């Protein structure tokens, strides 16, 4: 019962956040100069023609009415049409570019969780020794190093100097797809990896000092079992929250990485749309990525009380 209530509250917060982001993207289009009628009427249209098109598109209705229809359409996956080019539906652009970004982000999350938790645990177990110091220094460096400084460094090493990997995405692909994704995913994962490492380390150090661990040691639990079964399972919870929030860094990172490697993802689509002031595309890209961010954090938030009875008890 308590669990259900905790989940319900979180779902409610998630829904409010989604509404907020939809309102913000809707407002952005309102504030931007020009509207769809002006664009679709073309440059030679008269004022009366523009007004007629505006009326036919329903753009002359008051804004709350248009916001509701914007929401209805968005829920059904209709984001209007692109202003330029063949004026294709924006949903097609999203469908074409989102899989690439989703692939990059999910691979980066898996990579950073695996490496981060492993190294964080290692650092905690060998606390204050060389392994720990090295891991700490490396992770501090990775947290502050910007993605677009790390990227040229790795590209120079692996693409130009050793010539192991292809440099930028260009269709038709000259090599298997994974070879194009190795560096982008590694760069994208760098900062989350460092954050997860540090957090796992702190959390593990705290857990290893707890009394139930001392009891387990006294009882003669083997070391491996003690660390992975007793300590890590307790230490992992704050790490899961951090993995959720690191999606925010992944968003920033994917914009940079997609531009650096010229990958056809949603980040590239957004930037291109901004440079053309193609507002429907900008609006939809931000709405979709923002909604993804909120939903992923919601999933993490719902996982927490399921995994940890203490959270379930404390937050009702």
């Amino acid at each position, binding site marked *: 019962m308590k669990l259900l209530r905790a989940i319900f509250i979180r779902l409610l917060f998630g829904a409010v956040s989604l509404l*907020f982001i939809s309102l913000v993207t809707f407002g952005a289009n309102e504030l931007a100069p020009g509207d769809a009628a002006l664009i679709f009427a073309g440059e030679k249209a008269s004022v009366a023609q523009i007004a007629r098109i505006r009326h036919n598109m329903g753009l002359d209705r008051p804004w709350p009415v248009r916001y509701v229809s914007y929401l209805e359409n968005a829920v059904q996956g209709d984001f209007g049409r692109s202003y330029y080019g063949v004026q294709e539906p924006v949903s097609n652009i999203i469908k074409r570019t989102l899989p690439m970004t989703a692939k990059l982000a999910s691979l980066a999350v898996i990579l950073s969780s695996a490496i981060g938790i492993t190294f964080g645990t290692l650092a905690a177990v060998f606390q204050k020794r060389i392994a720990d110091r090295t891991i700490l220094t490396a992770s501090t460096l990775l947290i502050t190093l*910007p*993605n677009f400084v790390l990227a040229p460094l790795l590209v120079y090493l692996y693409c130009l100097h050793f010539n192991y990997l292809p440099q930028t995405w260009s269709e038709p692909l000259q090599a298997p797809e994974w070879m194009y994704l190795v560096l982008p995913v590694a760069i994208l994962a760098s900062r989350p990896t460092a954050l997860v490492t540090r957090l796992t380390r702190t959390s593990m150090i705290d857990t290893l000092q707890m009394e139930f661990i001392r009891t387990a040691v006294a009882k003669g639990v083997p070391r491996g079992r003690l660390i992975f079964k007793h300590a890590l399972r307790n230490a992992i919870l704050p790490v899961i929250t951090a993995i959720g929030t690191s999606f925010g860094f992944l*968003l920033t990172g994917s*914009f940079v990485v997609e531009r650096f490697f010229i990958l056809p993802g949603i980040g590239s689509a957004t930037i291109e*749309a901004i440079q053309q002031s193609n507002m429907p595309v900008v609006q939809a890209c931000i709405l979709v990525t923002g909604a993804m961010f909120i939903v992923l954090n919601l999933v993490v938030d719902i996982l927490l009380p399921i995994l940890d009875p203490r959270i379930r008890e404390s937050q009702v």
Partner: protein
Amino acid sequence: MSSPSTAPAKARKKRDWFLIFGATFLAFILLTAIFGPAIRSAQLNNGAKSFNSVTTGVGQPYEAISAKYLLGTDELGRDMFARLAQGARFSLTVGVVVETISIVVGVLVGVIGAYAPKYVSTPLMRFTDAMFAFPDILLAILIIGIIGPGFTPVIVALSITAWPSIARLVLTQTATLKDREYVIAAKAVGASTLYQVTRHILPQLVGILLAVGIVDMAGTILAESTLSFLGIGIQAPNPSWGSMINNFRSDMNSHPGALIPGCAVLSLTIFSLNFVGDGLRSYFDPKSS
């Protein structure tokens, strides 16, 4: 194992060295940003009266480092040093202006959140939380989508994304400080709320706000470089560290070395701001470290 009394002292000494390094580097960048472009223009002046070394190229593209071109030239034969110095000017200006705006707004919102009646403070702080949770980069990109790219739009976009974290910090700090005995004593002898806030609470926050502002400035400068790298920040022919890195990216196969100065300066500035901010923080707020 070192004894508990020397370990923190050792750590503090190490931190002091980082602080000194960071402060020295920042002073160097600041001086270069102020005087660099003009000095380079005067040195490279080819007889032209109003010569601008930042936007006008007089050399061959990608010249090597020499006595004439301290850090070589860029893809249009412009002096790399002058462009980096001008980039520093843009980055530091964005950093200082954005942090000033976000501290002013953050302090106002935080203090109102702590003192105003519930029907004002609750909606205000919920709004702050919503803004805080909204991914910064998406909001900044959206704002630039509305008003178009450029120097001022970058400042506007980053100010709008930066203030919520300051407001939350000020709210929690003010909420604890306002129940301290000396504040209650001031209230008891009839001090107005404005007097309590300006004389007893804000002076306590100056140090921590300075430290947090400097650490946040590293984030702001990084965000400005990111936007410029993406091509929606500071626009050509004006240089920004981010857009310079993006320009050299396309010629990376033939001239990988051109990337080094920009990347190094940007990374060192970010490191230094973090060192100085952390150093100040542990000075003003010893409990935090």
